[in-house]
């Protein structure tokens, strides 16, 4: 603390100069619109009439208070909804109305931003779900599932923004519950972590099930046939009535025929082939017994593929079988391409983590849409061709689990808290020391007050008196530490009103939660303790080291997914009949492609311009098949040169971004265009207004997406934004809803009797500045010119994520500084991170 005392003055001076550098932003409606108001509004809403209490004549054009903004918002709302001007009054021409609405909505967005500006304050933040999960893992060596906690704020900002991270009493109780469970595992005696291995022959598990079901079905069918020729009552053959006979015959037809076929296949004597049945995808599963503690495991399977099956089916998916899931449905964890054959099977390995709350039933199956209905549709199609079951793609010999492996983390935890002391107790002094060590780690090197420790020790004592063993009695006090504010909040004290420089330790914590979403490691603590972290060179060295550490994946995925709004990828289920290849595994690969691309840019320190256009993609075997790129073997993502003539390279050509711009059935030029404006051009359109009349004039007609959008231009309320948005989206119309290249658009009929139609695609369009392009390639080239704007958008997002406050006008100077710095380094990926980390705001509270 001593060191800091003289610093605030310095900071204040710097801030002071900063204030002069930038004009305070203002949201002002251009004066020219007074004419518009005068012509269409003031007749009733002037200072004399004030109809409905609304006086637009005196309403300031400067939107500088919540009240003024609110009144303008109301004016915008009634014009958007078409309420005003009233029907029987003069109506404005489309063009001036469009311009007025466009300016007003833009200025309102600006006003909201100004009025909600943080003023440079960083609110203390609670660990979000990701950080909580990672922090517990770091501390205890036990992986938990934080999805049990209430969802973090979803009001449009990043999950690191402290002001939006609420705390509720239910949450407190969840924290305690999760911590108790995790500590039970972490504190268990070492012998419980002895690895075990168990193998299950697939024919044993599956064939028995199939045989039983088949026998039952056959019996029903046989009795039915006997009854038919007997002339007796159905009850004598075990049927309640005649309808039941028919029903059982139908069941045999539906399921029995397939099982019969299954049992004749020689492959099933030594293993099992995977099929789609009426009861969902056939799944081979294995259950971890209670004696296997939560931890890391390896699931192995010996599998071969049939060359006759299409490529996308020759993948094995693994997942947990959740309670309540329908047959064949898995919570997918991973997938592997199967290159082995039935004659020469291969062994595939899946490392998985079992948490204290996760399902212990693990299933594998052929890759497909994770949906029983999808399996039924596969079966139905086979039957349409008079085939009992669709030809198989995969065969499995056996399935096994082994683990727990890598228990060192757990052992390390026990070593850390027990130190060199004997693990068994223990007087109170010993227990106190143990608890103190633990809370120091949990509180990120902060010491606890003696009275807090006293209370923790007495919690321990109470449990002992209640009969708990030494280890069990420790669970409660340690769980309480993990539900305490010093653990849950990243504390940066700020006595007085002035901003101050962080100390080394605080900076270390901020840095590691920024890049790792978890606490500092030993080295970072050491550097901070020695007081070296704040020197620019050391800070840079540490930042580089941390970016190169696998833990930086949290930043690459956590930041990127929120920056690019990738949650949209989960908004829609994809139609399994139209996009059979775009299943959960493909979605996961598509998502990971984006993160791995960002990772590649950071690792190789390439320009972020590569996200706009590049000659490489970062993909794995699944995506290579999906994109039609040859020679990519293996599950891991790697940089691959884009073959000539393929439209990939840059975010616009990724399956994830394209799929996000669809509703799972049709591509959406609007969503795609708006995303490009928001994320690539840094020119976000105002949010879709409420109460705008929906255009349904063309909705019932079978028109290409492009022609449907034309209706947007007919109403000023829509045209004000859509004239910019839609024409960008047209340039991506050569990609279907799941991001595959197409030259014809499928137009689905709403009527059973009308066939779907196919329309040629017109991919020409324009950017908001009216530059036109002829097709996707030209669009991509033009977007690539916007590198500077793209950099600004990235910078703003990075500031918000890294500082944990909504990007506001206060941060304008900082953004400017970062952009100047990064531009001089050709917008290399790392330069953004370094520029932010080295900036003053990052180092101050």
């Amino acid at each position, binding site marked *: 603390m001593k060191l800091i005392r003289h610093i605030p003055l310095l900071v204040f001076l710097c801030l002071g100069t900063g204030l002069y550098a930038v004009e305070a932003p203002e949201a002002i409606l251009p004066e020219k619109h007074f004419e518009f108001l005068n012509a269409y509004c003031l007749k009733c809403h002037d200072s004399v009439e004030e109809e409905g209490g609304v006086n637009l004549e005196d309403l300031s054009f400067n939107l500088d208070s*919540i009240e003024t903004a*609110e009144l303008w*918002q109301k004016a915008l709302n009634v014009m958007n909804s078409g309420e005003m001007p009233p029907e029987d009054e003069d109506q404005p021409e489309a063009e001036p109305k469009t311009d007025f609405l466009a300016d007003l909505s833009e200025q309102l967005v600006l006003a*909201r931003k100004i009025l*909600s500006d*943080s003023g440079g*304050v960083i*609110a*203390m933040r609670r660990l979000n779900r990701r950080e909580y999960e990672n922090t517990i893992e770091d501390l205890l060596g036990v992986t938990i599932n934080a999805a049990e906690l*209430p*969802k973090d*704020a*979803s*009001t*449009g900002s990043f999950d690191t923004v402290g*002001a*939006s991270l*609420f*705390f*509720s*009493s*239910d949450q*407190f*109780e969840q924290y*305690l519950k999760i911590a108790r469970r995790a500590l039970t595992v972490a504190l268990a005696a070492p012998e419980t972590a002895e690895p075990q291995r168990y193998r299950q022959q697939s024919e044993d598990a599956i064939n028995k099930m199939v045989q039983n079901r088949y026998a039952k079905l056959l019996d029903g069918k046989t009795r039915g046939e006997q009854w038919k020729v007997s002339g007796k009552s159905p009850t004598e053959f075990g049927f309640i009535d005649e309808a039941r006979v028919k029903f059982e015959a139908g069941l045999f037809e539906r399921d029995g025929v397939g099982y019969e076929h299954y049992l004749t296949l020689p492959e099933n004597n030594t293993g099992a082939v995977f099929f789609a049945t009426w009861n969902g995808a056939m799944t081979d599963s294995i259950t971890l017994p209670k004696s296997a503690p939560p931890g890391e495991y390896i699931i192995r399977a010996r599998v071969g593929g049939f060359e006759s099956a299409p490529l996308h089916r020759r993948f094995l998916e693994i997942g947990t079988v959740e*309670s309540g899931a329908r047959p064949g449905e898995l919570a997918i964890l991973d997938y592997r391409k199967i290159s082995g054959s039935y004659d020469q099977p291969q062994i595939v390995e899946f490392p998985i983590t079992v948490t204290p709350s996760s399902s212990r039933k693990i299933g594998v199956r052929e890759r497909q849409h994770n949906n029983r*209905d999808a399996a039924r549709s596969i079966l139905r199609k086979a039957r349409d061709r008079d085939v009992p079951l669709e030809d198989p793609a995969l065969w499995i010999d056996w399935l096994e689990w082994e683990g727990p492996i890598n228990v060192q983390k757990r052992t390390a935890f026990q070593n850390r808290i027990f130190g060199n002391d004997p693990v068994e107790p223990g007087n109170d002094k010993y227990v106190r020391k143990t608890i103190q060590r633990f809370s120091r780690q949990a509180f990120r090197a902060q010491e*606890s*007050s003696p*009275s*807090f420790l006293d*209370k*923790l020790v*007495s*919690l321990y004592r*109470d*449990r002992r008196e*209640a009969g708990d063993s030494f280890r069990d009695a420790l669970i409660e*006090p340690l769980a*309480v530490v993990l*539900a*305490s*504010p*010093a653990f849950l*909040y990243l*504390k940066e*004290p*700020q*006595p007085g009103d002035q901003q101050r420089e962080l100390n080394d330790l605080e900076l270390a914590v901020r840095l590691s939660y920024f890049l790792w979403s978890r606490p500092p490691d030993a080295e970072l603590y050491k550097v901070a303790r020695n007081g070296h972290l704040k020197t620019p060179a050391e800070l840079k060295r540490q930042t580089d080291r941390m970016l190169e550490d696998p833990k930086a994946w949290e930043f690459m995925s956590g930041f990127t997914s929120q920056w690019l709004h990738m949650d949209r990828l989960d*908004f*829609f*289920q994809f139609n399994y009949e139209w996009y059979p290849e775009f299943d959960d595994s493909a979605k996961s690969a598509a998502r990971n492609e984006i993160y791995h691309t960002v990772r590649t840019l950071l690792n190789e320190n390439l320009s972020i311009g590569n996200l706009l256009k590049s000659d490489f993609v970062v993909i794995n075997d699944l995506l290579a098949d999906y994109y039609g790129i040859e020679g990519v073997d293996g599950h891991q993502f790697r940089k691959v040169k884009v073959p000539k003539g393929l439209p990939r390279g840059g975010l616009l050509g990724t399956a994830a971004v394209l799929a996000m711009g669809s*509703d799972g059935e049709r591509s959406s030029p609007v969503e795609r265009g708006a995303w490009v404006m928001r994320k690539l051009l840094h020119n976000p359109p105002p949010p879709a*207004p*409420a*109460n705008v009349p*929906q255009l*349904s004039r063309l909705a*019932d007609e079978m028109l290409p997406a492009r022609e449907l959008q034309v209706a947007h231009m007919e109403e000023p309320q829509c045209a004000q934004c859509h004239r910019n948005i839609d024409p960008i989206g047209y340039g991506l119309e050569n990609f279907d809803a799941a991001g595959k290249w197409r030259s014809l658009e499928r137009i689905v009929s*709403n009527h059973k009797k009308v066939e779907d139609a196919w329309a040629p695609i017109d991919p020409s369009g324009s950017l908001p500045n009216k530059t036109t392009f002829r097709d996707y390639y030209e669009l991509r080239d033009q977007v690539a010119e916007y590198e500077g704007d793209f950099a600004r958008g990235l910078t703003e997002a990075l500031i918000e994520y890294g500082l944990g406050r909504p990007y506001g006008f206060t941060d304008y100077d900082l953004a400017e500084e970062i952009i100047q710095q990064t531009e001089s380094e050709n917008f290399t990926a790392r330069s953004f991170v370094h520029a932010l980390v080295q900036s003053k705001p990052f180092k101050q509270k």
Partner: protein
Amino acid sequence: MNGSKFSPLFPKQTRRAFLRSSSALIALPFMESFGAKRFEYAAPLKGATPPTRMVFLGFGWGVTKESWYPDLNTTGSHYELPRGLRGLQRHKDDITIIQNLTNQFSNEAHWGSTFYLTGANRYAEPGQSFYNSISVDQVAAETLGKETRFTSIQLGCDNAEGSGHGPGLSMSWNRQGKPIAGLDTPVAAYHRLFSDSNTPLEEQQAMLRQKRSVLDTVLENAKTMNHGLSKIDNDKLDEYFQSIREIEVRLSKEEKWLDVPKVQPTDPLEEPQGDIEGFEEVKLMYDIMVAAMQVDATRVISYRQPVDTFIRSLGATITGHNMSHYTNGSRLSVSEMRDEKQTQLFAYLIDKLKATQESDGSSLFDNISLSYGSNIESIHYLKNCPTIITGGGAGVKHGRHLVMEDPKTPLCNLWLSLLQGSGIQADSHGDSNGVIEELFV
């Protein structure tokens, strides 16, 4: 404690015997059959005035405008229920449909529940991009919730955003405008309301003591955190303090109720198993709600209903969001089917309320104020919030279709009216500017 005083009243065997004998729907014979004296937390005695209840149902995505709202020109009792509401025909005299209610600040077309019961302006707080205020159910709970085991109950569903509810953890927001978590599955709701712990009383008391020590310990930590924090950080930490205080209040209540077993409903509910989704889920939640009120476990409930899984359980393959943007074709038919099925369930709930007798011979329906609606009108319109109220609890004169003269009548006027009608002291709620007199005359 007074544990020993009452616990002999509920020996296990007797309770089981009681359960077995009570499979039919009968008036609460619970306390009487044991000859118990009335004590302060028990269900009221026969003949006593039954308590007032308030229930708020929110259904997220808006309705099919064309077939849900009655004709604006047919107000009063002479109106026809349109197709989407026809399932309510048998209750037509007992419901009120109100048009032209709106939350003036609502601007988010996908947030059907965030401000539905609060009427707040998300931009009201300078320097913040999100603000909310207390929801009407929580105002009600402060008065109605004093005597019951649960001050209020929040029910919800998984993936609320996909169902058009917007941010929040349930429909309810506390005094500080912070979200209150909900019970999102019938299983969770059932266990909270009806499952007793098998732990012996002394052990439960010891557990309560331990919980108190835990709170005491974290507060000790929070106090040391307190030093040197800025104003904003202090406000954040205050959320923590506030939560701990809430738990303390809950624990005191829990302690009072510790020796009182959870009352089982006379119409026995089966323990829900596994994942029940959509239509069946809503139905089960309604059963649970009625049971909870019948045994007077709580008097205030909010329920944020599923839409996404609801339509899927009806066979639809599109998302709730897709449905809400209906145009002619399959989206429209899904939207219409959703309205009809939701109405069917709502009518079922009213049936149950009417069939559930109170100790004085009246029905649960007579003593409840129930509202049903969303902040979203239809598609992305937020103007005329779909609103139906029912039940005798607030003294509303039912059987009418009311169209407010002012097309922007604050929805909060309705909430205020229901509060006052239910005997709760309140001068305003949210952006209310008065009560809706027409409801009561």
